[in-house]
C-alpha cells in the first residue's frame, strides 16, 4: 500500500513541467467526443422544440408542441413502445431464462463446454440484417422452412404466414430476436457462474444440502449483480431493435411490429419532421435511461444487503 502511494507520487513529478503537452494525447478523442457525442446530445433538446423539415433554413419555434403530439399520437408511437415492451418482456424472461438454464448446464457438465460456448455465441456475431433475412425466409408462408417442416411431420394445418399474420407477427419476431440474443446472456451468465468459488458448493454438499437448496442459497444470491447486468443489456438491446424489423416485417402488418427506433428514423429519412423525431428521441432516451438507472440502483441495493 505504502509502495503504491510512493509510486503515484513519483509518476506525478516528471511530467508536470510540460503538462500542456499532455492534452495533445487527449485532444483527438476530445474533439471527436465533443462533435459527435456532446453536441448532438445538447442539440437534440434544442431541435425538439422546433417544427422543422431538416432542410429549409427557417425553423418554427413550437415549444412543447412536439411533446404534446407524442402524447396524443397513440396510434403509432405508443403502439411501437408497447411492441418494444412486449419483446423486451419476452427477452427478459424467456431468452434470459433459457440462457441461464444453458449456462447452468454447461457450468456443471463441462464436457464439450467449450464447443457449446462457441456455438451459442455464433448468432450474436451475425448482423441483424443477415439474421432477419435468413429468418424472413424460414417463416415465409409458401416456401418457408418452418411451414415445410410442419407439412412434413403432418402438422400442415398449423401452417401460417408467420410474419404477415397480425396474431403471430410480433411473437415470431421476438423469437428471432431471442435466437440472436440469448448467446450474450449465456456467455455473461456462464462467466458469472464460473466466478463463484467451487469451495462454496463443496462445503454445502458436505453439509448435505440438496442441489435445489444450493441453487437458491448460493448461486442465486451471488449471481444477482450478473442478473441485473444481463437485464440492463437485454432492455437496452431489445428496446432499440431496428435492423431485424427492417428485414422481416418493416413494422407490419399494420403497426403490429412497429418499434420506436423505426418510428424515429422514419420521421427523418425523408427529411420531413426533424423536430418531432428529436422529441421522440428525447422521450425514448429518457425512458431507457430511467429503466437502466432503476436496474443499476437495484443491483447496488442488493449488493448492500
Amino acid at each position: 500500500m505504502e509502495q503504491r502511494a510512493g509510486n503515484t507520487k513519483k509518476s506525478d513529478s516528471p511530467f508536470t513541467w510540460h503538462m500542456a503537452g499532455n492534452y495533445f494525447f487527449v485532444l483527438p478523442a476530445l474533439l471527436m467526443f465533443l462533435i459527435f457525442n456532446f453536441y448532438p446530445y445538447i442539440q437534440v433538446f434544442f431541435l425538439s422544440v422546433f417544427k422543422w423539415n431538416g432542410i429549409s433554413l427557417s425553423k418554427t419555434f413550437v415549444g412543447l408542441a412536439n411533446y404534446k403530439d407524442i402524447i396524443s399520437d397513440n396510434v403509432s408511437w405508443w403502439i411501437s413502445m408497447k411492441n418494444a415492451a412486449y419483446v423486451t418482456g419476452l427477452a427478459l424472461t424467456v431468452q434470459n431464462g433459457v440462457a441461464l438454464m444453458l449456462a447452468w448446464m454447461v457450468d456443471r457438465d463441462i464436457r464439450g463446454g467449450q464447443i457449446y460456448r462457441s456455438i451459442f455465441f455464433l448468432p450474436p456475431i451475425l448482423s441483424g440484417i443477415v439474421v432477419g433475412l435468413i429468418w424472413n425466409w424460414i417463416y415465409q408462408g409458401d416456401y418457408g422452412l418452418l411451414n415445410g417442416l410442419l407439412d412434413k411431420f403432418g402438422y400442415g394445418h398449423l401452417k401460417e404466414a408467420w410474419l404477415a399474420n397480425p396474431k403471430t407477427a410480433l411473437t415470431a419476431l421476438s423469437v428471432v430476436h431471442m435466437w440472436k440474443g440469448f448467446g450474450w446472456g449465456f456467455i455473461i451468465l456462464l462467466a458469472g457462474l464460473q466466478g463463484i468459488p467451487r469451495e462454496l458448493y463443496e462445503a454445502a454438499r458436505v453439509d448435505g444440502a440438496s442441489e435445489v437448496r444450493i441453487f437458491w442459497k448460493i448461486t442465486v444470491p451471488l449471481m444477482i449483480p450478473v442478473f441485473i447486468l444481463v437485464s440492463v443489456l437485454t432492455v437496452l438491446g431489445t428496446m432499440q431493435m431496428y435492423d431485424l424489423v427492417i428485414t422481416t416485417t418493416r413494422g407490419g402488418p399494420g403497426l403490429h411490429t412497429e418499434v420506436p427506433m423505426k418510428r424515429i428514423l422514419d420521421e427523418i429519412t425523408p427529411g420531413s419532421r426533424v423536430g418531432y423525431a428529436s422529441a421522440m428521441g428525447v422521450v425514448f432516451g429518457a425512458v431507457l435511461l430511467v429503466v437502466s438507472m432503476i436496474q443499476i440502483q437495484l443491483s447496488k441495493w442488493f449488493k448492500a444487503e
Partner: protein
Amino acid sequence: MEAEILYPVRKWFTVERISLRLWRVVKSTIKHTILISVAISCIFPLVWMFSSALKTNATVFTDMSLIPSDPQFINFAEAWTKGKFGVYFFNSVLYTLVCVFGVLFIASLAAFAFARFQFPGKNALYYLFLITLMIPVPGAIVALYVLLIHLGLIDTRLGYMLPQINGGLALGLFILRPFFERIPKDLEDAARIDGCGRWGIYWHVAIPLAKPALAVVALFTSLAVWNEFMLAQLVLQSQSLMPLQLGLVKFWGGTLTEYPLLMAGMAISVIPIVIAYIFLQKHIIAGVTAGALKG
C-alpha cells in the same frame, strides 16, 4: 467427480451408488440432448443459407436438401458482379479498416494520457467519456443526422466513418486505460533514461505491450462496423458507397426474385466474420465476459 467422492456414504451404498450412476447418465444425456438441439438451431440457419446460395432460382424453393446435388458456385460470382456485392464488400472492408485504426489510434492516445499523465480535469473528462457508454443513443441520432447535413458529410465515406470511430472510443478507453495503468513504472523510467519522451514511451513501450488489449478493441470495433446498418441507411445514398449490410437490404428490396443471389450476397457478408470467429472465438468470448463483468 469430486461430488461423487464427497457424497455421504450410506448403509445401502451399493444400490445407492448404482442408482446414482444411472441417474447421472440419464441427467447428462438429457443435458446434452438439450444443448445439442440448441446448438443445431444456432448453426442450422447458417448452413441453410449457404446451401440455398448454391441452388438455382428454380430449385431454391423445392430442393430441401442441405447439400445441393448440382451446386451453383457461379451464384457467388454473379452476386459479386451483378449484385454489386464486390463493391459493397470493398466498402465494408475499407470502413472496417479505417474505423479500427482510427479507434485504436485515438483511443490508445487518450487512454495512455488518462493512465499515465497528470493534468487538470483528467478525471472529469474520463468520466464524461464513459458516461456516453451509459446514455442510450436514440435521443442523439436525429441531431447527429442534422449535424452531418450541416457539415456536408451526408453521402460521404467520412460522414459514415467519423461517427463510428467516435462510437468505438468509449469501449477502447474502457479496455485500454486499465491496461496502460498496469504497465510497470520501471519500464517507463528505463525508457526515459534511454532518451524517450512522452511520445517515445507511448509508441515504443506502451503500444507494443498493449497488443492483447488493442486486439480486443480491434475485434469489437470490426464486429460493430462490419455489422452496422442504421447509420449507413441514414448517411449513405450512393450505391458505390454502401457497405454490405445496406447493400443486402437494397438488393432484397429491389430484386426479390433472385433468392440464391441474395443468399450468396449474405454468405459473402458472413464468411469473413465466421472465419474470423472460428480463429478468434476464445478472445471474443473472453473479451465479452471480461468487459461485461468488470464494468
